[in-house]
């Protein structure tokens, strides 16, 4: 009865297995290397040790990178979720000339190659003298993150039943009370998911950060980048595992929020 017979299945199994192998092995390789007893980054580890995790959590270079990354990502999440939500409201509910153009411009960082954005920002931020500062990196990362917030919040706004807003007005709620009591609570899961994606965008970002940070102010991915090209001790693998853990946790959180959104 099924349309997949034995020969097809075997072929699919082999191709699928190889695909999964190539997709996941590079990442999975990094985790054990962080627990290595070796002094250099090598696979397979000759023995096991927590030395590099200790170093990752005590060496001021790594800990300040961790603090910087968290700070930038958190501020990016706040800035881009506020601006992104306002932009979504304008783009979905507003009626003004040039709406399509505004929409395209706001989403444009999604499609412009990151190396070009990095070069452009570097030229501009040097003139504004905000390279190497927290402010500069937060602005830069918000630029990259706002489109994700806009997509998330716009989807919430579009799938929300417009009749709910009409019903609220019909029952005596003016525009402000309708927004606060009905619209905002219903799109909040979209805003929150957008904020989490914004956090991750900043947390993972390396290209723009390399251009805009200095030795005094580096994020964790930039620190990893610098270290892996100079030293080759396994601390970078330990840090990578920590970074990956944070990423996965935040992402799972985002999915849970999305799931629990009331079916509007």
């Amino acid at each position: 009865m099924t349309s997949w017979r034995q020969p097809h299945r075997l072929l699919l199994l082999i191709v699928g297995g190889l695909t999964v192998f190539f997709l996941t092995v590079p990442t999975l390789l990094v985790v054990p290397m962080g627990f290595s007893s070796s002094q250099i980054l090598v696979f397979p580890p000759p023995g096991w040790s927590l030395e590099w995790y200790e170093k990752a959590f005590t060496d001021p270079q790594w800990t300040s990178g961790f603090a910087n990354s968290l700070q930038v990502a958190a501020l990016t999440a706040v800035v881009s979720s506020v601006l992104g939500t306002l932009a979504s409201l304008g783009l979905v509910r507003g009626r003004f000339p040039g709406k399509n153009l505004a929409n395209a411009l706001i989403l444009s960082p999604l499609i412009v190659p990151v190396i070009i954005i990095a070069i452009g920002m570097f030229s501009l931020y040097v003139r504004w003298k905000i390279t190497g500062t927290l402010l500069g990196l937060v602005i830069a990362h918000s630029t990259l993150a706002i489109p994700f917030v806009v997509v998330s919040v716009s989807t919430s706004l579009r799938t929300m039943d417009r009749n709910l807003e009409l019903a609220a007005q019909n029952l005596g709620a003016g525009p402000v009370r309708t927004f606060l009591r009905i619209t905002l609570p219903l799109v909040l899961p979209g805003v929150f998911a957008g904020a989490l994606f914004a956090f991750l965008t900043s947390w993972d970002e390396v290209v723009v950060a390399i251009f805009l940070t200095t030795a005094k102010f580096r994020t964790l991915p930039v620190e990893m980048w610098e270290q892996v090209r100079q030293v080759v001790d396994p601390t970078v693998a330990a840090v990578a595992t920590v970074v990956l853990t944070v990423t996965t946790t935040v992402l799972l959180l985002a999915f849970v929020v999305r799931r629990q959104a009331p079916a509007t």
Partner: protein
Amino acid sequence: MSATARPAASTTSPSSQPALVLRGLVKHYGDVPAVAGVDLEVRRGEFLTLLGPSGSGKTTTLRMIAGFTLQTAGTIEIDGVDMSRVPPYRRDVGMVFQNYALFPHMTAAENIAFPLQMRRLGRSEIRRRVADALALVKLAGHGDRYPRQLSGGQQQRIALARAVVFQPRLLLMDEPLGALDKKLREALQLEIMHISHELGATVIYVTHDQEEALVMSDRIAIFSEGRIEQLGSGEDLYERPVSLFVADFIGESNILRGRYEHDGEGGWLTRADWRWRIGPSAVARAGLASGSGAALVIRPERLRIVGADEPGAPGTNAIEATVTDVLYLGPIRKYELQLPDGQPAVVRQHGGGEREWRAGERVRLIWAVDDGVLVALPGG
């Protein structure tokens, strides 16, 4: 229950001021007229239905009354006050939506409390009124459920409670039963009728279901192409349609086209091959000029099938036909027939001892002269 019920209309309204007056209401979308000029007076406590096919302007009219859509021209008066430019949240009109439009992040009780909170009523007053409204729709004890935990029928009852709890001047309902299945729909039709009578509410009800309109309404306004084609009781519309459109939209019809000719008190519908007598009251109602194109409308249950050779009785008309299909429907039997000119005809036979005819038989259809309704032909 009595707490949410408004005093009967007769005791409060100064004389007989209508609850709603629409004057020359027009709505254009771009160049397209969605509503092309509607005049309507709704009496207090009346249950009035706007009935028509989709795109006929009935929903646009309702949305203009609610204030969701701004009319292009015309005025809307509620309880004698011009509301034409008043925003929806100050019109004091309750509305029930087809998809319920319950707030998903509030419980049933919170939904019902919402309009009362907007009106800044006291906590205990709100609690009392919400409880009364829940009892009214027979959902006492369901107040702490969220909409997604309620069935479709229950959700629609909560929506009804929310729309009446603040004692609005008008209750608007936009195909409120459209999403429910047939049995539940019929039960809720009766329930909505009983509740609105109990509250003495003035109801404007939109539907495209002619049976629903017939069952529920005091009066029905038939919409077609942005205008009211006919306004009257269900019996007016079914027994005395003023146009082919109304005859076709309400119930089934047999339609004979021809030319009207005046003759004494009554008249004739004539064709090359035949002519049929028209009664004086039908002639008076239609008010046609002799010689103009016209059609005779006869309802399927007014036709009787007799043998092809049976002579006609006095006071009846007749036409030949051939049976094409016999459809058994339980309480009735429906005959589909073909007239000599190829047009279809349909006859409803209500059980009880009448002879059964078979497909292919040649027969005669006869009807009482007074059962034929005369209407003008468009462009005739």
